[in-house]
């Protein structure tokens, strides 16, 4: 049906992953961009290949896995969860106990990644199923309180389970991202150390301008995580297209109507909890492995709220929204930091904008400004500014654009679809 992109002649073609040519082309472009991104081979976006930026991109990829999970629970099944940080912590600590190095004060079994990564997800999912009975009984905002409680109970647990989580302010080291067959064996592929990319890719160099023999650890981590995100995004998208996902959406839209149609509400909610927790657990384990060392205080309410912000800013209920939101929320602090540093330089200098910049930036303790770059300035520190920005973004998006970045994209798309008749 050339030239009729919106004409579907079968249900199958309407529910296809990429129903239109435009979508197929843009997805292929996205994949190419994503592959070339860390190799500094792209115009404009090449700076993202620097190792300091790539660390943040990797963090975004890890968070994308968690956000996809929360999106299934909150966006698709309509269950508000503030407990995502708790489930991430469960996964992360499962991973570190199974894969971490044992010490005098901590447990660790040093098992390989193909055990600890799936186990992190499975254990988190089991805990999710354990919590589900309470969650299934309560409705709407009561559930938000139950999951809020989980975060606080979790924080208490991690602070006190020193054998699992390490000391309260020191934390412990997570296993590195490397694949080996069994403990003590030489890793077959390492995703975290500098060196050649893959042993089996060595003879065929597909991209002649890229040095595949010597690749930094961040780049290799990036590729590992990218594959993970693609797999999990596909899984989420397919879940949403099949019976399970549709039953969740039915529960979200009107629970009584769903039950009348034969959807088992308790079963649907438990499934949503389990699968979302699986995503969270894997994300937590990857977070630990990518960062290397985490303290027990990492898994606090702020982390949960960060995920809520991702979902709300990106656009609830869509995979694209979850990915967009993650990129936006995780990259934002770094962008703000760069911008603040630039503004501070402007305020110090005597360019055209130095007066404007000086209002916003306090460079010394007795200078007035909304944001301070010095240690003891009167304004907000950059860290605090970021938290405030999260809050402001959540509020503004909910009031102005409830569908989030995805909604903005849809609006832009529809504008150009009808152009020049854009009324």
């Amino acid at each position, binding site marked *: 049906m050339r030239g009729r992109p919106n004409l579907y002649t079968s249900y199958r073609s309407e529910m296809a992953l990429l129903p239109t040519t435009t979508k197929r082309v843009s997805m292929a472009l996205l994949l190419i961009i994503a592959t070339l991104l860390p190799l500094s081979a792209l115009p404009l976006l090449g700076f993202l290949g620097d190792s300091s930026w790539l660390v943040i991109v990797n963090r975004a990829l890890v968070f994308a896995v968690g956000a996809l999970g929360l999106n299934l629970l909150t966006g698709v099944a309509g269950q*508000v969860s503030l407990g995502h940080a708790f489930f991430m912590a469960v996964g992360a600590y499962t991973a570190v106990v199974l894969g971490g190095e044992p010490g005098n004060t901590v447990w660790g079994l040093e098992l390989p990644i193909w055990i600890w990564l799936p186990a992190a997800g499975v254990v988190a999912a089991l805990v999710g199923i354990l919590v589900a*009975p*309470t969650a299934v*009984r*309560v*409705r*709407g*905002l*009561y559930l*938000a*309180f*139950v999951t*809020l*409680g989980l975060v*606080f*109970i979790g924080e*208490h*647990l991690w*602070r*006190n*389970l020193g054998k699992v989580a390490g000391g309260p302010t020191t934390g412990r080291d997570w296993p590195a991202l490397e694949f080996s067959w069994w403990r003590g064996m030489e890793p077959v592929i390492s995703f975290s150390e500098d060196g050649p990319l893959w042993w089996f890719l060595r003879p065929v160099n597909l991209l002649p301008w890229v040095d595949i023999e010597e690749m930094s650890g961040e780049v290799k981590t990036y590729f590992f995580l990218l594959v993970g995100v693609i797999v999990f995004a596909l899984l989420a998208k397919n879940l949403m297209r099949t019976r399970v996902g549709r039953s969740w959406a039915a529960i979200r839209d009107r629970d*009584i109507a769903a039950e*009348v149609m034969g959807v088992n509400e308790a079963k649907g909610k438990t499934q949503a909890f389990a699968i979302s927790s699986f995503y969270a657990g894997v994300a937590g384990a990857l977070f630990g492995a990518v960062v290397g060392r985490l303290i027990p205080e990492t898994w606090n309410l*702020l982390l949960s*709220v960060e995920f*809520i*912000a991702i979902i*709300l800013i990106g656009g609830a209920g869509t995979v694209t929204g979850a990915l967009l939101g993650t990129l936006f929320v995780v990259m934002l602090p770094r962008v703000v930091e760069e911008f603040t540093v630039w503004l501070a330089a402007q305020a110090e200098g005597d360019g055209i904008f130095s007066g404007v910049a000086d209002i916003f930036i306090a460079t010394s303790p007795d200078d007035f400004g909304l944001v301070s770059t010095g240690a003891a300035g009167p*304004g*907000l*520190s950059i860290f*605090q500014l970021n*938290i*405030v920005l*999260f*809050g*402001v*973004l*959540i*509020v503004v998006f*909910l*009031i102005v654009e*409830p569908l989030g970045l995805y909604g903005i994209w849809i609006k832009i798309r529809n504008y150009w679809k009808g152009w020049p008749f854009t009324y």
Partner: protein
Amino acid sequence: MPAVMAVVQAASQSGIEQFVNATISGLALGAIYAVLALGFVIIFKATQVVNFAHGALAALGAYFVVYFATVLNFPGRFLDFLPISAQWLLSALVAVAATALVGIIIERLTIRPMIGEPLFAVAMITLGLDLIIRTVTNDFMGNQLRGLGDPWGIETLELGLVTISKTQILTIAVAVLAMLGLAWFFRTRMGIAMRATAFDQEAAMAQGISVGKVFALAWAIGAGLAAIGGIVSSVAPRAPGVTPFTALIAFRAFPAVVIGGLDSIAGAIVGGLIVGMAEVYAGTYLTFSWLGVGFSGIVPWLLMMAVLLVKPYGIFGTEEIRRV
């Protein structure tokens, strides 16, 4: 922190003394939670908004007291003929009024445009507000502890077996006053208007009630009660002052609300007392090492989960009747 203090005290006391003192500090803590929960429930009943920024407002109220009483000495500097305690109480009153004003501003700027939107969205807005208020307050406070400058400090009264600190008496008195004040308020013209709005917004509007005014008032009262709760929870002996953690302590009023039932005034009071007593008793008696340090802090949450398993709408909450 309070749990540790209670344990140290307990070591030198006989069993019955320990129990009586635990009961009294449980009552005082329960009164704090009840006041916080009341403010929360009033906002929820009148406007159907779950206010996650309640803890932030509580800390803000306490910070206003620091500012008015110790930094500005307002209004005490104009009224130096009054005794110091009266001057402090006046400062506290100004702080409560200031927080109520913040509540009105919040309602007008962020809640009013959201009328008719899903409750979940509005609740998430208050979560965003919580981040904003807490961070900005912390920035002005700095990370160190700020005393509220109350004139009583750790002075206590000995009544036979019972040792009760003056601020605990103040706390309980304030809580009782707040409850009586609310009971009176709901009999006034405006209070009846609020009850009507809580019952049915459209019908109330049709009767000529200004629902917008009721919303603003509900947020003012709610924020004011949050401030009162924040102030009494950051004076000795509960805490030596406001810290960035004060807002988190106020978070524990949420289980109190949920246990009582989100939309029940009586439930807020009962829930507050239950949670307060449970927390102090746990701090006094459940001191086994395997429970970990600070176990009493999560007792409210555990209690909440247990109650929700049995009664999904809390003890006094109205069960949602779902029409097909």
